[in-house]
């Protein structure tokens, strides 16, 4: 498994070839020269119509995300963090407020925003290759030959270390591998923003840790802007540049934003003894379990 974790030069070459324009960022420097308000969320409110009348899920959401930034949304269940992610994905349209991505209004789903779902959502009748190719085809069919789209698909699968499973069907591979195909599918579209809804929530702890490490590497390699919904405090601190902590619903909003200035690349084991890591972790736990503790259900 370790050879997947450490990107060797051969793999970098494959990725470089199919993602031209992508530069491998020198570690620690990937936040230089960033566009500041890459994703802009202003005064967003989300109200759902229910049988019992309107239900305000989110209110007064203001958030600016820089290019290349890794943002986590954390909060108790029902706090609307998935709703917020769906808004950025364009799957739902806000009742109020404005949302921009790279200077353009978000009016629906688009290939510049790749989504990784919690339960992988691979189509069971397509192989891993075909699942990813479906996304590649949609974005690049007009501009590229089928050979180069095939290459893109293979590069995306190589990026998540799944070249060997290209022709397997989703039911033939493990949960962690399925989630990796989901990530490859989202990345293959060369999105400007990667949206992840509890991507590792359904995985066991060891697989989750492994995929977190890989995600950190991929995010650094591709300089992706990532917004991730999570329940897991350690995951949020380990991966994020900023952690957006949300208050309890209904009418949830952003309670606090914590900037995590741990140097990258981050090492899970080294961080275990890092006092700052524990400070951040403590701050999130304090927010979740002291200030936003849910009344006993």
């Amino acid at each position, binding site marked *: 498994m370790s050879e997947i974790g450490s990107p060797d030069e051969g793999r970098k070459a494959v990725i470089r070839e199919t993602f031209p324009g992508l530069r491998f960022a020198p570690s620690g420097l990937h936040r230089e020269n960033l566009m500041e308000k890459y994703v802009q969320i202003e005064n967003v409110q989300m109200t759902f119509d229910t049988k019992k009348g309107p239900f305000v899920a989110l209110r007064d959401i203001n958030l600016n995300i820089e290019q290349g930034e890794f943002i986590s949304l954390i909060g108790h269940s029902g706090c609307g963090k998935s709703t917020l992610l769906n808004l950025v*994905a364009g*799957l739902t349209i806000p009742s109020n407020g404005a949302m921009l991505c790279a200077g353009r209004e978000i009016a629906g*789903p*688009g*290939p510049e*925003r*790749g*989504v990784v*779902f919690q*339960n992988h*959502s691979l*189509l*069971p*009748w*397509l192989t891993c290759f075909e699942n990813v190719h*479906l*996304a590649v085809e*949609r974005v690049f069919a007009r501009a590229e030959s089928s050979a180069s789209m095939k290459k893109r698909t293979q590069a995306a699968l190589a990026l998540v270390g799944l070249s060997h499973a290209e022709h397997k*069907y989703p*039911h033939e591979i493990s949960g962690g591998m399925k989630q990796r195909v989901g990530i490859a599918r989202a990345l293959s*579209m060369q999105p400007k923003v990667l949206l992840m809804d509890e991507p590792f929530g359904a995985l066991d702890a060891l697989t989750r840790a492994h995929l977190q490490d890989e995600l950190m590497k991929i995010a650094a390699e591709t300089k992706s802007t990532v917004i991730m919904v999570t329940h897991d405090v350690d995951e949020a601190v380990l991966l994020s540049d900023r952690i957006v902590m949300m208050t309890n619903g209904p009418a949830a909003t952003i309670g606090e934003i914590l900037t995590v200035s741990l140097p990258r690349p981050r090492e899970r084991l080294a961080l275990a003894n890092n006092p700052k890591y524990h400070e951040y972790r403590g701050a999130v736990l304090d927010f979740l379990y002291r200030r936003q503790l849910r009344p006993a259900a």
Partner: protein
Amino acid sequence: MNAANPGIESLKETTAGDGTVATAKVFNISPSINVSEPVPTAGRRFSLAAKNFFQWLVPPVLGLTIFIGIWALVSQTSPQLPGPLKTWASAQQLFSDPFYNKGPNDQGIGWNILASLQRVGIGFGMAAAIGIPLGFMIGRFKFLNAMTAPIISLLRPVSPLAWLPIGLLVFKAANPAAIWVIFISAIWPMIINTAVGVNRIPQDYMNVAKVLNLSEWKIFTKILFPAVLPYMMTGIRLSIGVAWLVIVAAEMLTGGVGLGFWVWDEWNNLNVEHIIIAIFVVGIVGLLLEQMLVLLAKRFSYE
């Protein structure tokens, strides 16, 4: 087999849904017994396979034997009902020349079967050609669903033969009327199952379609169709079943060549052996149609 050996007893027999038996390869030998040979020898494996084979074979054969026995007993008490032996002799004679043709009212059993199959094929084919696309549209568009729901619930429970007079009236001929009855009784399961399948597509898949911004055509070919296929196959199977049930009754009324007509003709001739043979033929052909579709459905299942 050694009955005192609990290890053998705990051996799991894996039986697939279609009745075929896969030889169990997993041994679960409990530690309490004295195992001299933990690895099965060739001979032992053979005897296990033989055991599985008998377990697969014995119950159905026993069931059929009892059935024929009861039939033989009943035919002893009621002299008009021919017994199994008499029927068998008659069947041998009948099937020795299945494709003779002595005019429209006296044709071989083969012609009768083919005529019925042809009617079912045409009626069912038309029902599929209309019912499946209609099911897709009803499942995909709520408005259409609300529009057709009262009509479907009103017409679906109507007995198939009630449609026969309408068919005779409109088509003014017996054969198209019979096909019409097949059509109208076979169409409902296909419409309903296809529509239900479209409705039950997991929201995840539709979200994928939205996020990837797939075209309507791609949504249909890559998501809707494969997701609905298992439901559709169930609908087709139910439809074929209904169509085959109805054809005998419809042909009794419309006449011509066909199994149903043949049964009625033999009743008029008081040839009870042939009626019993017809019952078996209808049953066997129905079973074969069903099994064919089960095999087809298996090819299309992706899990």
